[in-house]
């Protein structure tokens, strides 16, 4: 890996708190193709980290490895300093695209309760008072009390996302990971979810890792980012990572970083400055930098 690509060493972690998640040298090969190559980063408590990359950059694979649903070809994952167990109560997870049918007989409250005991056998008819209190508390924390007794399938996309976040948080994890939580949300819902995630990170003192293809909505709340392209990762603050030299090296193709008002656009630039062999490497891998969505 090039020296240009910043990666987290122990020295770069802010403060003395132990990492809630430590990913070191993770490589994943699927039938001979490297989906992730030597990815390393650490997450500190109370920090919100964005995992940015276009479709096919390896975001979902990285999440599957962190969740223990897929074994890395090389590298290690430590959660709170311990090797990750298959069912890790330390990790709360909000998957991408949960299809909630309006017919489903599940209230928002039931979905949050399943976050506490959905992995247990039996009917769970006798919930303790403190369990019920915990569910109420979480519904309140994500501002979902108003629709707690509505069917989840009838809620709006943003409301469903908040319920799923409460589901993930109710068991008091140390790390919350969300796979594209902003996809398919309108601007207002997007703003609500982003504000909520910022608040949760601050109030609960947990690490939050959010994948997204566009970093802009997350800029106001994120502390650091992991930028994935072609299976490789650059890690650090926005100022450290989102620079033309770092991202060009990551993509293997010249990219420009434009700042328009408070938005950052990463665009494929003219690539005369790179040797011919590198010019089309990025697009050949199907992971060329894309023009960020522009919304007035």
């Amino acid at each position, binding site marked *: 890996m090039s020296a240009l690509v910043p990666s987290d060493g122990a020295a770069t972690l802010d403060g003395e708190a132990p990492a809630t998640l430590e990913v070191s040298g993770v490589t994943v090969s699927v039938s001979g193709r490297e989906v992730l190559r030597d990815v390393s980063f650490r997450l500190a408590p109370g920090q919100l980290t964005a995992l940015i990359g276009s479709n096919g950059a390896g975001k979902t694979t990285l999440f599957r490895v962190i969740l223990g649903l897929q074994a890395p070809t090389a590298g290690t994952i430590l959660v709170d300093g311990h090797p990750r167990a298959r069912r890790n109560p330390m990790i709360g997870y909000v998957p991408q695209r949960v299809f909630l049918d309006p017919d*489903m*007989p599940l209230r928002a409250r039931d979905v949050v309760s399943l976050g506490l005991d959905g992995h247990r056998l039996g009917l769970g008819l006798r919930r303790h008072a403190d369990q019920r209190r915990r569910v109420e508390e979480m519904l309140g924390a994500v501002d979902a009390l108003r629709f707690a007794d509505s*069917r989840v399938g*009838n809620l709006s996309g943003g409301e469903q996302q908040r319920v799923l976040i409460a589901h993930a948080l109710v068991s008091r994890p140390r790390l919350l990971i969300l796979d594209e939580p902003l996809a398919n949300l309108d601007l207002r819902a997007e703003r609500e979810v982003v504000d909520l995630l910022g608040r949760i990170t601050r109030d609960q003192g947990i690490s939050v890792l959010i994948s997204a293809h566009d970093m802009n909505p997350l800029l106001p709340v994120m502390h650091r980012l992991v930028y994935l392209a072609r299976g490789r990762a650059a890690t650090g603050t926005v100022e450290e990572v989102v620079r033309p030299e770092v991202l060009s090296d990551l993509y293997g193709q010249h990219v420009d970083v434009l700042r328009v008002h408070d938005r950052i656009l990463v665009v494929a630039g003219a690539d005369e400055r790179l040797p011919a062999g590198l010019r089309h490497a990025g697009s050949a891998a199907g992971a060329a930098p894309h023009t960020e969505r522009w919304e007035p």
Partner: protein
Amino acid sequence: MGAVSAIFAAGFFQNGSVHAALLAGAVAALVTGAVGTFTVLRGQSFAGHATGEVAATGGSAAMLGGLNPLWGYLGIAVIVAGAIEALGVQRPRARDLATGLVLGAGLGIAGLLLYLDTTGTSTSGAAVTVLFGSLFAVTRSALPGMVALGGVSLALVVLTYRLQLLTALSPDLAAARGVPVRLVSLAYLLSLAVAVSLAAETVGAVLATALLIGPPATALRLTKRPGLAVLGSGLIGVAAAWAGTVLAYDSYYWPPAGRSWPPSFLIVAVVFGLYLGSGAVQRVRGRRRAPLAPGAVPAATA
């Protein structure tokens, strides 16, 4: 007393076949309704329907061998359920194709076996019995087996209830929580196999779908609580089975006089009627609640 005798024709409560029919219908409907709730939740109505219909192959084979068709239904349904799990087809389109192919092949074999049943032996009503059921012909000797099977199926539902809900919500989410998703699916498919076998024994292999999908669809319209949906679906099924049995007994006095209407038809008719009725209830409730929640939550029903 007048009202009672107007509903229950003479001899209803003394008739042995009626007792057997009431018990068999209740067990089958209760189990099928409860299990069917998860079939609907998983969006696998077609696979559930196919399991029931392909079970006709086993039922007709069992009759050819002089056995109670129940054991034939069960054998085939378990095999089909196992095959669905072994194939593990996650993509809905591919799953529909595979299900359709198995369904076609299975019914083809059933057609052959039923032909042999009706031509080779004295059981001339075999085709009707296997495909459309004959509740009043359920023998007393089959009842203990039916009750035991129903108990096993319900036990699976109770044991894996929360796991099934979480898996239906999102298999990814369940897997991340350490839920053995494939094992949970297998438990569901086993309870489904038992449920459709019981339903096939009472209303026939073809009409098993009606008991599997109708009561849950009705219950899902009436409640938004998962536990109530499962329980309600089972009870709606039982109500339909009993109402159908009573009507079938009474129908001896309906035109054309002297011949009873088939209970399977009447049960399915009640199931469908209840479903239509639940739609009306849903609309009335929706209208009553709509003004209370302006704009924000679209039609928070039930």
